[in-house]
């Protein structure tokens, strides 16, 4: 038809936006008419961080006149002018349609004056070469980032890809969908798909007998109560498919010669990796002196209700504790300072205000960024912590 259009594809991260675009392009490329007559220009907001780079790459991908080999000649202004000339000199009937796919569209909105976007949408709005501008973004408020003149030229065609939007044909809950996905991702391909897989990977041959056994087993997993509860819990936190795939990859990577079946336990272990608190892990690797300081900080923030703290207050609190308990060795102040700085470097403490003020380091104020629950958990898991210290940690003030 030679129509020009613009559209935005919006959805949270990992909701299959790029997958959708790629599959549509794949289907279209099967049509000979499309394959011969459409030019596709892919731009990515993270790669083409300003309009100059984006233009250079556009001219290169459209294989225009001023491209020799792979180099593009001309300044930004010349390139832009040239590109627009090219696009304007075409008309609806005779020129090839160009499809612009702008990934990370919201980053293109941060460019100077939104020059590139304005010009692309302007061409789409006027009787020139038929172009289609497709923006892919994860920001729902992306329309508000556009300038008014750019907004006016955009056709307000927004496609939302929200996870859990299931078509009305399958009246089932969203979680059943997740179970189905679980089964689908872990199952080996059945008879008609085997050949396709084998063509893709030369060294992959699937014994049909083993395949059917494996699939039966996976199917039995979906009825396992522990498994279902685990999946449900994960699903309640995050519905995106990408994270789920990562989780499955961790589970599948435990398979080996000796361990040939995916047990429920593997999934539980994999989930632990995903759901553990890394701050607590960090605390478990500290020395006893540093743990004592952390406990002192925790108490300080509890007593004084999140007031910022400095080294001196922590030091005094620690010394008070160390003097009461003979089993704790007395340590020199510089050593404690060293431990304090180590904690600071782990970003458990964050400086208040700008740190370039001329303050002695003992009196520099910090904020403590851990919750008391995290500290208590670390104390509980710390192997070989003296009992006095753990008692001190749990003693209420």
């Amino acid at each position, binding site marked *: 038809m030679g129509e020009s259009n613009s559209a935005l594809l919006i959805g949270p991260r990992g909701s299959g936006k790029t997958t959708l675009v*790629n599959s549509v392009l794949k289907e279209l*490329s099967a049509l000979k008419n499309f394959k011969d007559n459409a030019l596709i220009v892919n731009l990515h907001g993270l790669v083409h961080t300003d309009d100059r780079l984006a233009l250079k790459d556009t001219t290169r991908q459209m*294989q225009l006149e001023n491209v020799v080999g792979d180099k593009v000649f001309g300044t930004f*202004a010349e390139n832009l002018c040239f590109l627009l000339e*090219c696009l304007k000199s075409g008309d609806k009937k005779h020129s090839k349609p160009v499809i612009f796919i702008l990934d990370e569209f919201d980053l293109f909105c941060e460019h100077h004056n939104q020059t590139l976007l304005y010009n692309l949408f302007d061409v789409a709005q006027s009787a020139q070469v038929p172009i289609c501008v497709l923006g892919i973004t994860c920001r729902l408020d992306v329309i508000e980032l556009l300038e008014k003149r750019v907004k*006016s*030229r955009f*056709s307000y065609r927004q496609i939302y890809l929200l996870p859990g939007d299931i078509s009305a044909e399958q009246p089932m809950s969203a979680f059943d969908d997740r179970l189905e996905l679980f089964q689908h991702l872990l199952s080996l391909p059945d008879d008609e798909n085997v050949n396709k897989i084998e063509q893709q990977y030369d060294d992959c041959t699937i014994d049909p007998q083993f395949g059917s056994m494996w699939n039966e087993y996976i199917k039995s997993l979906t009825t396992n109560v522990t498994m279902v509860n685990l999946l449900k819990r994960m699903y309640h936190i995050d519905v995106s498919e990408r994270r789920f795939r990562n989780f499955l990859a961790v589970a599948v990577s435990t398979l080996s010669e000796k361990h040939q079946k995916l047990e429920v336990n593997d999934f539980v272990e994999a989930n632990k990796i995903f759901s553990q*608190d890394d701050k607590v892990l960090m605390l478990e690797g500290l020395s006893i002196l540093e743990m004592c300081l952390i406990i002192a900080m925790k108490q300080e923030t509890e007593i004084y209700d999140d007031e910022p703290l400095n080294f001196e207050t922590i030091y005094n609190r620690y010394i008070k504790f160390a003097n009461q308990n003979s089993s704790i060795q007395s340590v020199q102040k510089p050593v404690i300072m060293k431990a304090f700085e180590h904690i600071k470097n782990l970003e458990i403490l964050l400086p208040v205000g700008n740190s370039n003020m001329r303050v002695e380091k003992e009196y520099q104020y910090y904020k403590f*960024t851990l919750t008391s629950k995290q500290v208590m958990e670390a104390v509980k898991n710390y192997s070989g912590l003296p009992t006095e210290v753990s008692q001190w940690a749990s003693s209420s003030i």
Partner: protein
Amino acid sequence: MGTQTTITFPIRKKCNFYGPKNDVKEDFSEATAKSTLTKYTPSVKKIVILSSSESESDSDVENITEITKETVVRKANSTPQTPNRRKRNASNERYLVSPSKQKKNQLLQASLTPSTLLNRLNLSPKSENLQPKQLFGSNEYQNARLALHSSETEELPGRENELNKLQEFFQEHLEKETSSSLYISGPPGTGKTASLSKIMQQPEFKSQFKCVYINCTTMKSAAAIYAKIIQELSISSSTKSGKNNKAIIEKYLMSKHKMLFLVLDEIDQLESKKQSVLYSIFEWPSLLNSKLILVGIANALDLTDRILPRLQARCELKPTLMHFASYTKQQISNIISTRLSQANASNIFTPSAIQLLAGKVAAVSGDIRRALDISRRVIELAESEKIATVLCPTNDNDTNTENSTKQMEITEKPVELKEVLAVLNGVYGSTQNFNKDMFPIQQKLLLCSLLLILNKGRNKDITAGRLHEVYKKVCTKRNICPVNFSEFLSMCSLIETRGTLKVVGKKQSRLSKVNLQWDQTELDLALQDKVMMAEIINDTSCL
């Protein structure tokens, strides 16, 4: 010439959606499932094998860059010259024959500097190597869609007054050969550029004036406008640098020349330090015998007062102001109906549907582009529904009897209010629709805790730590297992990507502030539907 570089890549799989290629099968499967070694492969126009020792292999492994150029002026829409295509084009006689060998040799001797390439830019639309598409089976829907595309402008209904005013203004100055400046303002989509281009396209206008139209958004900096004007006026500038450009233009204006008509679109892009560029441009008409009519177009009504206050001081510099108001409901419906009647598709829309659409758009922005876009979307929707009804299997139950009668109708169904409303809701509706399972349950709990603090709490500035405390209390009260703090933060950032929250100060994990971005009452209403959520929002004991 013709150096040949050989770069070998460890290619695992061919993955190409970059540029047209004919020799490799398109294959996007697993494009996202695994990271493949993708490689740009520009289709090689002509492979020049210099040394016979090089074995020919397919272009995916060897990237042969050669610097031979054809003299055919290739346009943006160049296609690889397959013999087939060549034949067809030759039969159409719209194709420049490929250059003879002699020519190529001459070319090869010519230096291929970028400047020569750029100078050879000749974008005459001669070398069309695509056949016009056969509009097979073009039905009413398609006609209507084409007619409603925003690029189709011949007449401008609803802008007759402005057009007449402009005509008079230009005629007057043309007869007296005086110069003047005009500033046109108005919101986007009110037909400013369309009106001017319509006037500029009149033949008598073209003959009397030298017209220059420049869109300032294509300028990299404000000062680049001078070079562009020089290029448009085709004055030969002696110096390469842009320093004297302004002086050159002024010299040209002082000399004897045809009446000049200069249109600067989106003139507010030319703001610079102290507005020197804009001032100097607006001062040109006051030069002696400059014979220049300057027209500036922008959105802001008060641009000349706000950033060009010095122009007010001198009477002769004061630009004439003209404002294009937003379209009214009547004008929008007129435009749509005239366009449809021109395309003989006036029965596509019911009059009430047009009224609804026009009323809604006029109430919000009065932007004709948006009205046309929405009407096109509506037609698409109607079209898809029609196709759906045709494809629908005819059963004998009551619901489908209507459909089967619809199939019998040869005339196309006009657009009803229903479709218009569907599209309008898509455009103007809020993004905050909590349909079905838009949020996972834990995220809903988080939002509810936030609302609880906002509604009932005393302290309104919420840190992530405090929110987590409340959230945990909420969860334990309902026997839901709460997530730990790091997971909680990642949940916050997930909700943030939807634009619901804003987390300020991400580095201070527990002390970062959490702000609600959406309208609180709207979110409240959305969550109050669910019994449990309503309980949480009103449960002060968790604070």
